[in-house]
């Protein structure tokens, strides 16, 4: 297996403020990485640096041995779901039009998505359970539906690396489990490398292969169960933090702390 993402000695500061300090992470292809930590801990900055949207002050990010900028100019290498999309609520497009945007990179220069792209887009909409709303205007969808449309868009480009920044926003709790199962399935079927940012350390640990606990510094990287100890959790969230864990290890939720 090849190394998909290799981050070495990465530091990012914005307007003189340290956002990420000395981060080292290596992730193999086909692995599912959860990035957890408190708000302001640098999770979004880390994924944006991996995508090449933010330039590091020191250190480097390499994706399959290349820089993110080089890979981006190829077709649909990354599937990306931003945390705050700031989409104009009246944007003139149907749900299918938005999902098809995920195929723009694949379609190439001067070409609009064709029949094959439509089929791929529809497959992704079915996976997200939203094939019935393909013709509905984006502006008329509920927050949860818009989020599902955006996830379908991120998947539609058949990316090699899927980057999801807080994907469960707007998706109800029942839907969340289905969604994480879906991701697991895609990971196995397509040998997809997945990065998922979440503030919910308890839920994420159940599904991911590896976890990075981030609060400006990287406090932990490795097996998800190893993250659930006092030292790591306190570094991330401070004391007086109550952790609820959902794992196959226990039938019901087990209260780890205090």
């Amino acid at each position, binding site marked *: 297996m090849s190394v998909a993402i290799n981050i070495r000695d990465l530091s990012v500061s914005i307007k003189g403020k340290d956002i990420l300090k000395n981060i080292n992470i290596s992730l193999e292809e086909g692995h599912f990485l959860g990035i957890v930590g408190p708000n302001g801990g640098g999770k979004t900055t880390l994924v*944006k640096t991996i*995508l*090449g*949207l933010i330039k590091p002050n020191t250190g480097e990010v390499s994706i399959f041995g290349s820089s993110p900028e080089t890979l*981006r*100019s*190829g*077709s*649909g290498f*990354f599937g*990306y779901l*931003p945390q705050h*999309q*700031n*989409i*104009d609520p*009246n*944007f*003139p*497009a*149907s749900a299918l*039009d*938005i999902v098809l*945007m995920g195929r*723009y*990179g694949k*379609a190439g220069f*001067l070409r*609009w998505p064709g029949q094959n792209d439509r089929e791929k887009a529809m497959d992704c909409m079915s996976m997200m359970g939203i094939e019935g709303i393909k013709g509905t*205007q984006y502006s008329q969808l509920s927050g949860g539906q818009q989020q599902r449309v955006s996830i379908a868009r991120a998947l539609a*480009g058949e990316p090699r690396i899927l980057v999801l920044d807080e994907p469960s926003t707007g998706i109800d709790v029942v839907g969340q489990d289905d969604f994480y199962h879906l991701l697991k399935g895609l990971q196995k079927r397509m040998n997809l490398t997945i990065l998922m940012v979440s503030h919910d350390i308890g839920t994420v640990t159940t599904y991911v292969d590896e976890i990075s606990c981030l609060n400006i510094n990287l406090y932990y990287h490795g097996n998800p169960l190893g993250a659930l100890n006092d030292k790591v959790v306190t570094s991330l969230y401070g004391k007086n933090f109550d952790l609820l864990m959902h794992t196959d290890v226990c039938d019901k939720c087990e209260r780890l702390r205090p």
Partner: protein
Amino acid sequence: MLEVLGSPFMQKAFIAGILVSLLTGLISVFIVLRKMSFVGAGISHAAFGGVAIGFFAGVNPLLTAIVYSIMVAIGIESTGRKGRISEDVSIGIFYSVSMALGVALVSLSGSYNVDLFGYLFGNILAISQTDILMTVVTFVFVSGFMLIFLKDLFLASYNEELAQVSGVHVVLLNKLFMIALAVTIVISIRIVGIILVSALLVIPGATARLFAKGLLSMLVLSCLTGVISVVSGLFLAYEYDIAPGASIVIASAFIFFLSLLLKKKR
């Protein structure tokens, strides 16, 4: 009514007017989607500085205005991107300084006898063969740019970061769009004038957005609104001897409010 089409100067006005309305119709879609109407107003007012440089130096004012407006447009784009000064502040500064420069140069050159009113509000009589040629060349380049990068512009209007991740060179695209906008503004000056051109950059797109279900329908509706506004505005200007800028903007505003009413009733 139709005898207006027989007069050579009105023929020129219609040719230039229709080309200008198609261009502003295309650009207007992205001005509205990307919430850039203040950028349009800023660059068009700044163009006055460029026109005045032309008066002062004794060269074709539209040529100096094109060069000057492109510089201002790139300036606005880069200050906005670097984020030290917010974009609306930089527009406010650029356009007031350019207007001041324009007034100072016009005063110094003592050229109050030139058709200042025509530059500010449009003048159908002033459209020369050279202007038509410049309009045709601009039309070919700007509409070509828009069609080639339509998909990229649409994606960047939806979300710039997603566009970047999909391989769109967003910084370059934005720069090219600003240049296209600046050139379109200057080329529209003969027809609608510096003060009123921003209406043609906003109203067609805003009208189209009321009904459009997708990008293509928005582009078609926007261009249609632009063409109807300009053609009917030129007829009104000829018939009642009004500055064409005013009659065109009034016509487009009429279409917009009518559309708003229709939309509410549906």
